[in-house]
Structures are given as C-alpha cells and as structure tokens.
C-alpha cells in the first residue's frame, strides 16, 4: 500500500503523518508512508485543504486531522 500525506509542513500535517505511521504499525500492514511537501504535486491531486491523505493514488480525506481510529478504518 502506498500512503501519502499531503501538506506543506504545518503542525497538523506532521501530526497526521505520525498518526498514519502509528496506524500502519498497529494494523501490521505493508505500506510506505511518505510526506509530500511539493505544492505543485499536492495541487495535482486537486486538493484544497491540507493535510490530505492519499492511499494508492486516491484522495481519501482532506483538511481534517484524522484520529487513529479514522485512519485505521481508511487503511483496513
């Protein structure tokens, strides 16, 4: 699974990446978690609010600080 956290580096984006990494570990799934900070790439996903979460190329959430439970649900 390829997971991307889109965001330019505000505190919310950092927090989301940490949550995602925790969820991946807890679920024990094979996944790469990367943070995308390049504005042009972020805009390529047609995202207007950061942080956004992209799983296998699909935007599943944006502008929200997801809880661990929410992220687990999205990854499952």
């Amino acid at each position, binding site marked *: 699974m390829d997971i991307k956290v889109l965001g*330019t580096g*505000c505190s919310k984006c950092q927090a989301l990446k940490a949550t995602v990494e925790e969820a991946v570990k807890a679920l024990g799934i094979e996944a790469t978690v990367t943070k995308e900070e390049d*504005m042009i790439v972020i*805009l390529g996903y047609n995202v*207007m609010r*950061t942080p956004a979460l992209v799983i296998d190329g699909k935007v599943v959430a944006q*502008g929200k600080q997801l*809880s661990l439970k929410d992220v687990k649900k999205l990854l499952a």
Partner: protein
Amino acid sequence: MLKIFTLLADWLIYDVIGCMPTSHLGQALHFFVEDTSKILVLLFLISFLMGIVNAYFPIEKVRHFLVTRKLYGLEYFIASLFGAITPFCSCSSIPLFIGFVNGGIPLGITFAFLITSPLVNEVAVAMFLGYFGVRITVVYVVSGLLLGMVGGFILGKLKLENQLSDWVKEIQKGSTAANTNYVEEKVSFLHRLPDITRESWSIVSGVLLYVLIGISLGAVMHGYVPEHFFATYLSADKWYAVPLAVILAVPMYANAAGIVPVIEVFVAKGVPIGTALAFMMAVVGLSLPEATLLRKVMKWKMMGAFFGLVTLFIIISGFLFNLLLTW
C-alpha cells in the same frame, strides 16, 4: 450571559482558594480566571458553530456552487462569507487560491475569499466578544466581510490574470471544470458530531498557549502602561495616527489571540477604537509570512495591487470607525 464567568472566578478565587477580593494577588488571579475561562468557552462554541456550517458546506461544495451558478454579484458576498467561516490556516491559503482559480472562479471572487479569510476567524471573533462585547464584534465582522467584497471587486476589475505565476498558468491550462465536481457525502448529523467536537477542541487546544500569553500580556500592560500613554501619539485628532498604526502593523505577524488583549489595553489607555481596529485588521489580515506564500502564486504587480489596496482600505476603515464609533 457572560456574568457566569465572573461568578465562576468569584467562587474559585475567593471561596475555594480563599484570596481576599481586596488583595492584589486576589484581583490578578480573579481577572485571569475570568478572562481565560470566558475566552476559551466562547472559542469552543464559535468553533463548534463554524464546524457545523463547514460540515454541511465544505469548501469543495462552495467552489462547485460558485463555478456553476450565475449569482449576479452575490458571489462576492458568498466568497467573503465562506472566507470568514472556513477555519484559517496560512498553510492552506495557497491550495485554496489555486483551487479557486483553477476551478474557473474569477480572480476578484478568489480575492474576496482571500482577504476576509484571515481577518474574520473563530479566534478573532471569540476574543472580540470577550474583550469588546457584541457591538464592536459585529462591526469588526461586517467590516471584514465588506473589505473582502469591495477589495475583491476592485481587484477583479484590474484585470490581473496575466500576473499569476507561470506555473499557475501552466496548471490552469490542464484543468477542466470537471475537476470541481463535488460529490456530497451523506452523513447524519449525529455521526458528524464527534468529528465536529474533536475539530473544535483541536482549535481551542491549538491556540490555548497564545490565549494565555495574550491575556497575561494584556494584564501586565494594564498595570504598567500609564493612563493616556498612547493618547499623545495616536489620538484621533492626529491625521497620521491611523495610517501610522496600519503601516506599523503590516509587517507584524500575530495570532488574533495574542493581539486582541493588547489592543484592549491600547483602547483603555486612550487610543481611539477606530485606530485600534485598523491596527488589528492590518496585523492579522496582512503579514510578511503570508506575503512570502502568496509570492509563489502571483507576480510582483499583483502582490502590490493586493497589499496596497487592502492596506488602503484598512486605513479608510480606521478613519470611518473613528468618525462613527464611540467606545
């Protein structure tokens, strides 16, 4: 209604802790507890209300609405209104700007959103309610909306489209209206509630530190700044007072939570309310960090027009407030 916080502080400081209402410590603690609890509760309530609106009108839906409807001028109001309601985060302003422009929303309407968004937000509204009461808060919010609408309208007339950065124009070519399609999520209110509550809570905890610093700073300044200290330099009869306050404020960057208590001291020590409001607008509405972000999407001429016009309008608003408002 706000009386309840005075009672809370009375009870906590005088009854539970047992400070004397006449002692300096007692008064200082009382002031601190009253103001902090009041601001935090107001902030939570306002964030919660805005959260409900945002749950039903997310920005993607607003964009879709603005792109697809003919609104005969009302679109400036809608863009400005949603600028006010959407929680402002400076790191989101670029994606929002691009998202609007690429969706085919005219530049002027995008500017209406961009001008009001930092000016009117949940933190500013809560702080104003707590420190200045309902009347001044309404004046501030309405001015923020008007500033966005009028500013956006004029900037739109300036035909600055060719002043977008080249990479933005590049993206624009590739985008189609289909990009702005919005699919509504059907979620019941009860299911949204935990999300909205959590989001409001994260807004409150996110600015908690600034609120505490602002309130403490205000309290300290109250004690140490002499009466009428500012009146000498910034009184209403000095024509340069408003422009000076605004121009000093533009490069400053402060959270609304930190700046409102300080402004309250200014007003208490003799600065006219209009000058103080204009200062506040310039601090939160225009800042160097925002400018560096916006510089990535617009060329210098557009930056100049945007900052110049908004600065000018804030100065004019300051003069108007001084004429019309008494505090």
